[in-house]
């Protein structure tokens, strides 16, 4: 399992490809479930032009590893890759990637969803968005995206 925190833009698909290529489970996985969270250009009815993601360095990694361990204790997972952005993010850029490799699809789907839901509620990230009006505000409601 791999957890990465990036302060720069990343390509989720080349990350998955590289990870899959380097991992020693070719032929063993029948199912890959992937979630990508991407920055939208709107939120709560307003146009958003940028976002800054603050995090608690160290706790983020610890919590994400805990979440993956919890998932591994519930489903048979072959591999797991989690990537999360911090810092300045612009619309249409990826924020988070969760990818789960498993022998069977139910495990992959359920573990991927679990990791995302837990990440949303337990990983110490805070979003501050800049509207097109240049007003800035902390995102306070629990985002559904």
């Amino acid at each position, binding site marked *: 399992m791999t957890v990465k925190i990036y302060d720069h833009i990343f390509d989720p698909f080349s990350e998955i490809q590289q990870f899959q290529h380097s991992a020693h489970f070719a032929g063993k996985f029948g199912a890959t479930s992937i979630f990508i*969270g991407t920055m939208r250009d709107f939120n709560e009815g307003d146009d958003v032009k940028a976002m800054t*993601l*603050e*995090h*608690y360095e*160290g*706790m983020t990694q*610890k*919590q994400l590893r805990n979440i993956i361990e919890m998932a591994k204790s519930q489903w048979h997972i072959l591999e797991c890759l989690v990537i*999360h952005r911090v810092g300045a993010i612009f619309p249409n850029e990826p*924020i*988070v990637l969760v990818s789960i490799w498993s022998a069977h699809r139910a495990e992959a789907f359920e573990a991927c969803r679990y990791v*995302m839901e837990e*990440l*949303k*509620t*337990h*990983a*110490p*990230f*805070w*979003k501050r968005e800049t509207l097109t009006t240049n007003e800035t505000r*902390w*995102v*306070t*409601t*629990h*985002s559904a*995206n």
Partner: protein
Amino acid sequence: MITIRYFGSLKETLGKSFETIDNAENFTVLDIWHLVNPDFSIAENTLTAVNMDYVSRSEIVKKGDEVAFFPPVTGG
């Protein structure tokens, strides 16, 4: 020594992100808040962590611990 950290909007509200205190023997997380933020009541939704694990406010803090206060998380 105990390290105290603040994140997100709470950091801005309090105007600080980091502080340390020396004498807090047998203090709970909530006791520490009251000690260092006497003018601010703690918000109901403020989350608390000790050494990067979530804890309740009644958790006893030990010498060398890192205590953190922050608003609900909004990652992902």
